[in-house]
């Protein structure tokens, strides 16, 4: 009897072992996982390089138009800055007067993106900085355009970043114009969903969503994205919005990990 079903029993045993792996929180898993990542990171980078370069060439016209627009914007901002410098100095004097200490500059680490997990279920990316560079779990990851995600797992020299669009990601947020707060979380669509906005909140398409000071891991005021649709019904006590992230995740090559 045992001999006849020996093969099937072995396969069943393999299945059971792999199922029990799910329940065992062994500390060696992350070490092992980062070992596998280390093994694959170089070929992934080599494979990603030509794709990024081709994308740069294909998007040349768009990049040039963007450059022209940004240059005009920079000129306007430079002109404004002259006036603002006086306001900043005045603000600093007043803050000193009120003994109000605010930290505006965060220490950060620049990290290169090794690759993104090719999965429909998750939005994850691997970066080339780890615990050795001062990175810890939960630290916010941003770039010039806004929030990218946060550190999910840390290895010695590499880390996993859970992206803003991952269904497991969530952050306290604020709609900038009407100052309505809610919770932004990822979806499988590649967008984000903002929930728990109070019923009747005057939010509209095009409003910008930023991180709120209620967030434990993100500094306030970082751009998350823009509202692209508002879902409101008489039967639900809150308003939901679909938010398009400000960051184009497919084009990210470098990110900034905020350390404090």
């Amino acid at each position, binding site marked *: 009897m045992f001999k006849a079903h020996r093969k099937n029993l072995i396969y069943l045993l393999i299945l059971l072992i792999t199922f029990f*792996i*799910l329940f065992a929180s062994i500390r060696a898993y992350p070490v092992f996982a980062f070992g*596998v990542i280390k093994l694959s990171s170089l070929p992934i980078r080599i*494979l*990603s390089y030509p*794709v990024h370069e081709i994308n740069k060439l294909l998007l040349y016209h768009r990049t040039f138009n963007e450059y022209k627009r940004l240059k005009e914007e920079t000129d306007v901002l430079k002109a404004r800055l002259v006036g603002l410098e006086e306001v900043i100095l005045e603000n600093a004097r007043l803050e000193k007067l009120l003994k109000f200490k605010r930290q505006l500059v965060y220490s950060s680490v620049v990290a290169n993106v090794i690759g993104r997990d090719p999965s429909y*279920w998750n939005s994850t990316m691997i970066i080339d900085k780890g615990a050795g560079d001062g990175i810890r779990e939960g630290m916010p990851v941003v770039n010039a355009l806004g929030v990218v995600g946060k550190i999910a797992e840390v290895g010695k020299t590499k880390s996993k970043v859970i992206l803003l669009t991952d269904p497991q990601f969530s952050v306290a947020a604020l709609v900038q114009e009407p100052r309505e707060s809610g919770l932004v979380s990822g979806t*499988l669509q*590649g967008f984000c969903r903002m929930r728990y906005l109070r019923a009747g909140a005057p939010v509209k398409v095009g409003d910008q969503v930023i991180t709120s000071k209620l967030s434990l891991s993100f500094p306030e005021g970082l751009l998350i994205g823009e509202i692209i649709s508002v879902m409101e019904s008489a039967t639900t006590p809150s308003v939901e919005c679909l938010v398009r992230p400000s960051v184009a995740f497919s084009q990210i090559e470098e990110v900034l990990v905020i350390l404090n």
Partner: protein
Amino acid sequence: MRKIIFTALLVYLFFLMEFFLFNMGGRWFMPNLLLLLVIYLNLAFGIRYSIFAAALAGIFKDSFSTEIFGFNIFAFILCAYLTTVLKRYLHYVASRRSRLLLVFCVAAIHFTILLCLRLMFSRADVLHSVQFVLVPEILTTLAIASFTFNQLKKCVLRLFA
């Protein structure tokens, strides 16, 4: 031994190919190449190599994911085992349609296992999962299944004939 090395190399290559396709086509062209490989190895070499490939593929996938370690290992191994069961009823040698039907069934099972695991251990929106995971994954996987199987067949014939 040659087959084991060949299987391990193929898994690594297919895993890298998934990265390459993801960089090229974005999130709307991500065929499950590793699952195709597991199915093919099951049809060509039998369940042992298929389970070995499934375990390796799962390890690669789980290493890059932020989910609980073991999700993909379990899902791939169960799929490898179920392919053996399903091929008895669905697969006819040299019939392309039956092969595609087998791929469709195994891909749907793979999705169901991952969805169940997510419902058990974390959270998942069933409707969204069907819409944004099952449909694109099955369509893209089926679209390249025949081509992948043909290339793998050529490769196997050259090396092991």
